[in-house]
């Protein structure tokens, strides 16, 4: 094992080199003042109407080949049923805490209680909620909370159906980061379309290791 003495002396040496390079020892007060002085003249809030923001999100998600529908609160379960029918999702995994009224009858939902990766590999897909969505980039953000679950659950299955509430949609990245600030310590994943690669001749190929298919239901 690495001995404490070795890393401790490495730590002291690296910090000494930094302080010698800068000619001073940095402190919390200077750091705060310096950070506050950073000019942030970029857009930090929404500039579009709510309806335009929703249209933008739908457009950006479709640009990534995700399927998107927008439904009222009462119609989520039937919309889920329709989507799963098209995608042949008969046996789905879901995190604990997903709203019961979103689940249609006639589909088997396995609640994740710490399933092994091999077990996640054997289901048809996963259905989750989302913490928020970013219209400008076509992104849904997931965290390890009720209804969204562990990161592996939305990674190993080949199909991800994500339900996003309209009130959780923001227009820009800065608005999203502001909303996430309070829970910044949670495991967080930004998902923008199905997994993809551009490693072969810079052609975007959908579906490598993450889910190859992503659908989004917007509610409200």
């Amino acid at each position: 094992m690495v001995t404490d003495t070795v890393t401790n002396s490495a730590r002291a040496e690296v910090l000494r080199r930094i302080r010698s390079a800068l000619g001073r020892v940095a402190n919390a007060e200077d750091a705060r003042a310096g950070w506050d002085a950073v000019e942030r003249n970029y857009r930090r809030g929404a500039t579009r109407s709510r309806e335009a923001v929703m249209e933008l999100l739908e457009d950006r998600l479709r640009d990534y080949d995700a399927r998107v529908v927008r439904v009222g609160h009462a119609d989520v379960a039937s919309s889920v049923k329709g989507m799963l029918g098209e995608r042949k999702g008969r046996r789905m995994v879901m995190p604990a805490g997903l709203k019961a009224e979103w689940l249609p009858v006639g589909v088997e939902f396995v609640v994740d209680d710490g399933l092994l990766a091999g077990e996640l590999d054997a289901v048809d897909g996963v259905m989750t909620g989302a913490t928020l969505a970013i219209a400008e980039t076509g992104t849904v953000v997931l965290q390890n909370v009720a209804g969204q679950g562990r990161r592996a659950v939305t990674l190993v299955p080949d199909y991800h159906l994500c339900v996003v509430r309209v009130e959780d949609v923001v227009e820009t990245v800065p608005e999203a980061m502001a909303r996430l600030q309070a829970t910044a310590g949670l495991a967080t994943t930004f998902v923008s379309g199905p997994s993809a690669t551009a490693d072969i001749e810079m052609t975007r190929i959908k579906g490598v290791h993450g889910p190859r298919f992503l659908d989004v239901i917007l509610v409200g």
Partner: protein
Amino acid sequence: MGGLVSGVGLDPKTAPTFPVAAKMALGDTQLRKNVRHATDVIQAKRARVVAEMPDWQALREAGKQIRQHTMENLDFYLEEFEANCARAGGVVHWARDAEEARRIVVELVKASGSDEVIKIKSMTTEEIQLNSALEAAGIHAYETDLAELILQLGEDRPSHIVVPALHKNRHEIREIFRREMNLPELGDQPHDLADAARMFLREKFLRVKTGVSGANFLIAETGGVCIVESEGNGRMCLTLPETLITVAGIDKVIPRFQDLEVLLQLLPRSATGERMNPYNSVWTGVDAADGASLGDGPRAFHVVLMDNARTEILADEEARQTLHCIRCAACQNACPVYRQTGGHAYGSVYAGPIGAILTPQLQEMHHAQSLPYASSLCGACYEVCPVKINIPEVLIHLRNKVVKQNTAGVAGLFDVEAGAMKAMAMIFRSERRFRAAQRLGRVAESPIAGSDGWIRWLPGMLGGWTQVRDLQEMPKETFRDWWERRGRNGD
């Protein structure tokens, strides 16, 4: 199945000089075609998604200021990161150099009880040639990024920071996969190749218990780490193993979570020309099970904070901005020199303009001295840099350093730039020679100046100069000639 030993690493200590390596690369027409195609596509995509951002310049300025501020307070932010990461259950290790970083990682992998690791693409682990050290210790490293897999199976080396196998086309990739994955029937469509990689790696993701990653950002405020990626291989390596080891240069720290609002806009648009890359992961220490939620991800998490000459760069005020780099590779795609030679000629995992300034400094200017000359100073790299690193300025500064270092000895007599400077001094000392040189310059430029006297196009590799700026033609008459004529006419 062979080939799972990593290819020979790119080592600036032993690589041929840039002019020699570039000459070899220029003879490989297939390579030049592949590089040109890929960089054309990526540049067009970047231009499109940057153009739709009305506040792009404000974002660049904020990015620059955040990075500059971080470097000025680097010791504070590293200690803050360390404390917060440890509080969340992570273990932070410090490494003075590559050798120490390799030793720490090898020991951590052994302690995890595994003789295999799955790896996320990481230029930092390429920089320290970690895979060779792991192999030497009897540990198999599986590269899981598609491009890195292509390189590993083909015993090849990275040629681009973001798309390391950019120099290979689909037919070449198919040949490698056919041979190494034993798939004689494999097609050559990109989706055939991606499917083959999915099948090949899935079993490894589900089985291997230890993961190794780099990092895009270390968040001091929370102790969190952020990794951006496309394929989901990163998420597999971050989520499924029991032990995760992250190797990061000390330059990767950022002050606060909120700073991601700038960097996560700049990086994807600059790197792959996407509004957002498919996956960004942020995690903080170890997410253990509690009453409310299941544990999420590895139960043991280590971060290795590595210096490896970064503090040398920090100490040089004129070159310090080199450390602002967020590894998007936009400068490589825009560089007329890189687009001709590809990445291998740079003899380092960091190629292109950023490599030309980063590599020699990581070698403390003892190796790769020809790299600061691998540029026409056209400025295209500065124009596209999302954090406004003035690469031409640093190149000139480093040339100066190299010249000073080399003219100290006999080698100075044969140094090209030192020679040019001597010739300039000779011209300036003689009035006759100075007049002759000025006349020669005007004659040489006359075929390329427009009728309005502006030069918008320069031939060959000088073309980068006029891509982002126009040059004014030299006046028909020099000041000296005008002054003399004025004296004669008495006006």
